[in-house]
């Protein structure tokens, strides 16, 4: 699969769902809890995103 709009759209959905979880937790508890959850999600997302990009780049190179 090429790095294109469809791949980026998947990330819009992921960020949207993560934001919905943070909003729900913030409204149910306190803003600090929501902020900490948001931070944890951002860190996890960065690690996953880096691995995803690395794997995608390798796949594209192998198809060359």
């Amino acid at each position: 699969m090429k790095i294109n709009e469809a791949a980026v759209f998947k990330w819009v959905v992921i960020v949207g769902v993560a934001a919905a979880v943070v909003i729900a937790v913030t409204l149910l508890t306190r803003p600090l809890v929501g902020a900490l959850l948001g931070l944890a999600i951002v860190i996890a997302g960065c690690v996953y995103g880096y691995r995803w990009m690395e794997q995608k780049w390798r796949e594209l190179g192998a198809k060359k």
Partner: protein
Amino acid sequence: MESASVAVGHGHADHHHGPPEANQSSRIDRQTLGILLFIVSEVMLFGAFFASYFFLRVVVDPPSWPPHPYTLPVAVAGMNTAILVSSSFTIHYALESIRRGNRAGMKLGLVATWMLGATFLFIQINEYVHLGFSARDLSFGSIFYSLTGLHGAHVFVGLMLLTFATIRAFRGHFGPKAEDHLGVEVPGIYWHFVDVMWIIVYVTVYIL
């Protein structure tokens, strides 16, 4: 110019004139790579604004945030967020349509995206008018208008890109092959970025 043509005429036609051929990666086309690199630089720009926001919020440390007596229209902004998120689905629909050769679907998707984006911007400006505080009111006002204004400027740029893409679509440009609809693909990627950025701005500024 003339000397160059004379030189060619004297048996130097096999020599390459002008700048070297641009390298084309087999992994990603130039246009997509260009917009991705641009987005990386934009993430850094937004990162600087977010750093300012958190710095002010933590260091200034008012008893409440937003500082009394200011309030933010969370529900209206939430509805605006839904409008912008839905525009990501319509631009995706436009792209999926042209990939299947459905030109009418692409046009519909582009027009819907443009209208949703314009509605978002209109509501944002309307919100500014009715907020009751300006960028001069405390550091809160400054950073609020800076962050949301920076994003609004990006929406405006995205709308300009979508305008060009829509005009081209109605003129019969673009085709199902990947290289034939880059004029929609690249603004589409940019639009998704603007959308994701707003989700983060909304959660940070209005919810947390």
